[in-house]
Structures are given as structure tokens and as C-alpha cells.
């Protein structure tokens, strides 16, 4: 019997297999940031251990980093201490760090691919659940807790029970005006937040093959939001074209050897998945969330659902709680929901393609009164690229705020937070209660919907913007 893509990668990384124990897997790349690593380094010190492979480890500062006043020290002293702790740890243990102010600083999941460190066939971990992003290159990538961070630092390996295998067959083609973000939001609503639990998911099909690398990263990024261990996409020419020439990509004979190997990283025709689900991309129109978990989503053209219509007790109570928290009435058209703040950024949608789309839509418009748009590039290099293309000026001319790079309002560990009751349309990945600031109310959206919303002041899509243009003309 053939193997799935994920099984092939898994098998290539088994260091030790013993009956009744999880496999010991080798880790090709360990990414680190300031939030989930300090206690792991402390653990190493306490037990007199070292970092086994600093040459397979990379650190960056992202969660706490302010997006304004970048020339000043971090004002929040607790944040500053955490960042300084990372710097001390990296120095003591010989780990490469891209700190604030460095040209390669940025969100860890934007930096890895951008440097060419994320490659097909690898195992990649990080103390961050959105590590699944790197699966877009055909690697097994997943988030781990701090105890596991310590384990990987000390051993460059991880004990892992082999997950089950799932295929998501994406049939049809995404219609114009629909994005990878709409597709993954629709899938999470279809499957719920626990639907992928226990599985490594391979996204397959013609619609996936046609996606750019960055769009593939958006899809894989949100694998964790439906509970999957990891999500991945088989590498192809799109992957190779993205990688070739990047600083850490192989060169010369190594490139040829790598590509020869990467070409074998496909699911065999006779491989059997434990589960196969199908989603029709051609039916996807802009999709947004109405609730407080990413599985509570609806078409932008739809209405806030009525909890009374939900049969499952837990789901109904969760829906009632969500509407109460978000201050929404059942039956309200989603497009009637007024939005205070639009956040464009994060490891889900903070890359250059996202900013290009956003800039092209906002050009010639103004941000609505009483609404603000924050544009936060995923990395310093994304920021510089956008500035070289003049995108920053387009945003500023429209009245949007152009900021420095980092995780920012995705989780509000830096000063970019919602205030209680403030409502956002956010291109990030989580709409949990208080995620973007205590009492903040989040709707997850694509960059396209984010911009249309920022211009119109209520949830809206690119089509509404086009109507506005027709009416104005």
C-alpha cells in the first residue's frame, strides 16, 4: 500500500520506534520567540543541559513588539523584560536571533519562509500553534508547548504519537473576489473547531494547486483552528519558484538533490487516508465569523444565526454566549454590523500579497468616519517591500495607519488592543473572547473584506465597494 505525503515525511524523521511508545521524531527546524521560550531555557540551565543544535534553531521577536515608536525602548516594562530575556538566552546558548530593529525581524511564521528556511519534507516546530503555516511547503509543522520547546532544545527531537491522516479535497475553482481566507473560514465552519482533531490534514485538489505560496500559507495557518495536528500541501513548481534564490535555500548540486527528493513528496495513488472530506471551492463567496470561535462563521451575505435553531445543546449555549459577548441580535444581516477597527496583518494575512490586494482595493477611497484601519506588515522585509512598491503611501493617503512589523492586534500583547466593546474586522486567525483586548469583539475576515469594511464602516465585501464606485461614477 502506498503512503500519504505526511506519512512519507513522518517516516523519514523517525529516530526511534519502540512498541508501546510514541515515535521519537527528528526536528529539522526549531523556531523560537520571546513568549514561550524563557521557561524552557530556564529548564536547560536547571538541569545543566545545552542546546543540542543551535544551527537548526532560529529566534525572532514578534508577540510583544510595538508597531509605533520603533526607535524607543519597549515602554511596557514586563514586555521589555521578556524580550531582553530572549536576547540573553540566545546569547548564552548561541542561538541566532533577529531582534527588533533587525532587517529580518518579524512574525516567526513570516520570517521562516521568507528566509527560505522553510522547505519541503521538513519537520518544523515552534512554541506557537500557528506553526502549521509552514505546512504550505509540504512539511510537517506544528505548535508545541514550553516543556516540548525545552525537549527540542535539549534533544532536537520530540516524542510524538503518529496522528491519523485526512485529505481535504478542494474541488472546483475559487470564484473571483473569493480568497484562500474565505475558503479556510468556510471549511472550519463546516468541520467545527474539533473536526480535525487527531489528524494531519493534506489540502489537495485543483483549487489548491492554483493557489500562490502565500495563499497556501493562509490555508495551512488556520489548520489549528479546526483542531488539526498539522496541515500541509504537496510541494510543486509554485513551491520551488518561491524558494529558489532565498538566503537559506539550497544552491548548485544541493538544489538539484533537494528538488529530486521534493519531487517524491506526493501522496501515492494507492495511499489510503483515514478520512476524506470534500469542499466545493466554486461555491465560496466572502465568509466571515459571527461568534467567538473560528467555527462560528457565515457567508458575508448571510445573517447572524439564531441560537434557537441549533440542535446540539453545547453548540446552542456557545452561540448564545457568543451573541451576548459580541452584542449581536440573531437575524441581523452581517453587512449591517458596524465596525470600529480594521486590522490587516498577522501570520495569517500579513504578507506582501495581502498588502498588495489591500492597497489595490483601498486606492482612491477614504477610510470611513469613526473607523480606523491598522496595516501591520508581517515582517520588516514585508514592510520594506511594500514601501518600495509605494503601498504605504496608498494606505496613508486613504487614511489608514501604516505600522511596524509584528503580531500586533492579532493577540494584543503589544499596545495594539481593542478597548471593551470595540468591534473589529480582523484578517487574523482567532475571534476568541478578549483575544484582541479585554472586551474586544472580533470578526475574522479576508484582506478584501477588511478593506471594504474599513471604507464603508460596516462589514462589506469587494462587490459592495464596486457598487459604491458605480454609484459614485
Amino acid at each position, binding site marked *: 500500500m502506498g503512503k500519504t505525503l505526511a506519512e512519507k515525511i513522518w517516516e523519514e524523521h523517525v529516530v526511534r520506534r519502540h512498541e508501546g511508545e510514541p515515535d521519537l521524531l527528528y526536528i529539522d527546524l526549531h523556531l523560537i520567540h520571546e513568549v514561550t521560550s524563557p*521557561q524552557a531555557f530556564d529548564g536547560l540551565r536547571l538541569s545543566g543541559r545545552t542546546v543540542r543544535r543551535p544551527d537548526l534553531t532560529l529566534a525572532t521577536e514578534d508577540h510583544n513588539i510595538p508597531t509605533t515608536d520603533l526607535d524607543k525602548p519597549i515602554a511596557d516594562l514586563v514586555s521589555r523584560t521578556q524580550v531582553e530575556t530572549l536576547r540573553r538566552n540566545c546569547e548564552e546558548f548561541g542561538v541566532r536571533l533577529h531582534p527588533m530593529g533587525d532587517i529580518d525581524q518579524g512574525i516567526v511564521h513570516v520570517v521562516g519562509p521568507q528566509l527560505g528556511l522553510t522547505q519541503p519534507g521538513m519537520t518544523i516546530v515552534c*512554541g506557537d500553534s500557528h506553526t502549521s503555516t509552514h505546512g504550505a511547503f509540504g512539511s510537517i509543522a506544528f505548535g508545541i508547548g514550553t516543556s516540548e520547546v525545552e*525537549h527540542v532544545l535539549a534533544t532536537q527531537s520530540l516524542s510524538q504519537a503518529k496522528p491519523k491522516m485526512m485529505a481535504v479535497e478542494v474541488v472546483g475553482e475559487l470564484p473571483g473576489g473569493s480568497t484562500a481566507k474565505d475558503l479556510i473560514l468556510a471549511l472550519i465552519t463546516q468541520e467545527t*473547531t474539533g473536526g480535525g482533531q487527531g489528524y494531519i490534514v493534506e489540502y489537495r485538489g485543483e483549487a489548491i494547486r492554483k493557489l500562490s505560496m502565500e495563499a497556501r500559507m493562509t490555508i495551512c495557518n488556520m489548520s489549528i483552528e479546526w483542531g488539526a495536528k498539522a496541515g500541509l500541501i504537496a510541494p510543486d513548481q509554485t513551491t520551488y519558484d518561491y524558494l529558489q534564490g532565498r538566503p537559506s535555500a539550497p544552491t548548485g548540486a544541493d538544489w538539484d538533490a533537494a528538488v529530486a527528493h521534493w519531487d517524491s513528496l506526493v501522496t501515492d495513488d494507492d495511499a489510503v487516508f483515514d478520512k476524506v472530506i470534500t469542499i466545493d471551492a466554486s461555491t465560496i463567496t466572502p465568509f466571515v465569523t459571527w461568534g467567538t470561535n473560528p467555527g462560528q462563521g457565515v457567508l458575508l451575505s448571510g445573517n447572524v444565526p439564531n441560537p434557537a435553531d441549533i440542535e446540539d445543546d453545547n453548540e446552542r449555549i456557545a452561540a448564545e*454566549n457568543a451573541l451576548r459577548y459580541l452584542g449581536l441580535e440573531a437575524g441581523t444581516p452581517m453587512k449591517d454590523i458596524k465596525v470600529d477597527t480594521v486590522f490587516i496583518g498577522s501570520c495569517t494575512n500579513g504578507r506582501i500579497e495581502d498588502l498588495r490586494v489591500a492597497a489595490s482595493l483601498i486606492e482612491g477611497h477614504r477610510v470611513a468616519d469613526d473607523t480606523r484601519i491598522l496595516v501591520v506588515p508581517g515582517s520588516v522585509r514585508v514592510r520594506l517591500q511594500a514601501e518600495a512598491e509605494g503601498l504605504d503611501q496608498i494606505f496613508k493617503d486613504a487614511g489608514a495607519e501604516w505600522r511596524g512589523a509584528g503580531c500586533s492586534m492579532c493577540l494584543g500583547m503589544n499596545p495594539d488592543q481593542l478597548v471593551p466593546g470595540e468591534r473589529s474586522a480582523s484578517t487574523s486567525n482567532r475571534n476568541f473572547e478578549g483575544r484582541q483586548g479585554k472586551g474586544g469583539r472580533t470578526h475574522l475576515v479576508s484582506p478584501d473584506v477588511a478593506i471594504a469594511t474599513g471604507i464603508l464602516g460596516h462589514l462589506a465585501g469587494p462587490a459592495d465597494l464596486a457598487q459604491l464606485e458605480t454609484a459614485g461614477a
Partner: protein
Amino acid sequence: MEKFSTHSGVGAPLRRSNVDTDQIIPAVWLKKVTRDGFEEGLFSAWRNDPDFVLNQDAFKDATVLVAGPDFGTGSSREHAVWALQNYGFKAVISPRFGDIFRGNSGKAGLLAAEVDEKVVQRLWDYLDDNPGASITLDLESRTVRAGAGVDAIEDSFTIDDYTRWRLLEGLDDVGITLSHEDDIVTYEASRPSFKPVTL
């Protein structure tokens, strides 16, 4: 890590599903660089509500949390496990856990006991009728027990064999792996040269 065999303690009914790790410990609390002191941040948004279960006298010293399905979804923050432990919890019972949370619990010594949804419902009802009552978790036999007499609840819970063994023995994972260092060295010798390095 401390050994875990059997625990009996006050059960607290958390009648919610999809309790993500942002609810267990919001991001503003993650700036600490230690493993302790997270108890104040535990469920911090809900703790402002006087009706919240942990604000009720009968449940404030709870050590066993009984939650709805999909407990611990979302962020990988192990701080969620530490916050529960810092508060005093020894075990969480739920029909389904977020993958990373369950893994983190096993590493940090918090028992994540997966039970049938009906068992959670019975435990909730039992705790509502008997506030302050104890729940017992026996890891050796993978059994959860509460109450006595005809209404007694006794059912099995699920935990994988390896995590159960490590918890029972109180073993340090890194130590176990380093005892297989020869295997790691052998593996490293065969890694292809095209794999990237950071230094």
C-alpha cells in the same frame, strides 16, 4: 515531575464548550518569564462575574475541573496548564481536549481525563446538587468516581498509555529521550546535506 496515582478533590462544573486557552489565560498574562504566579490570570475575564463557578464558596478550592467538549483549543501556551496548576487544579475532565493542551498537560503533570459527554453531564448535575463534593480520579485503573450509593457515578476515562505511564512514574521526558542519544547521533549522521542550517 511529581508522581500522579490517585486524586480526590472538590469538583467544579464549568458548563461551557470550546474553552480556548485565551479564556484559560489571556495573552496579557503571558509576559511573565516564570512558571508560577499565573493563578490570578486563570479565567480572568470570567472571574469578574460573581456567579462564575470559581467565585462560589463551594467551588473556590476545587482541584478537579469538569468542562464541556473542546477544552483547551487554540493557542499552544503551556501557561494555560500552569495557570490551572498554580490555582490548585490537579485534573481536568472533558469529552474532548485541544491536542496541544492535552500534550502540555501530560508534560507538566496535570491529568487531562477524557470521558464520554454523558459522564460530564452527570458530573455537572451531581456537582450542582452537591456543591463542594469530591471527585476521584484513579489513574492506575483509569476510573472517575463521584458520589455514593445508588446514584454513585463510576466510569472510565481515556488517556494514552505512554502519558499514563509517565505520570504514574513522574518521569522527565528529556531524561528519557537523552537515554536514547545514540539513536539521535546515528540519525544525524544520515541527514541529507541540502537541509538548511541557521548558523
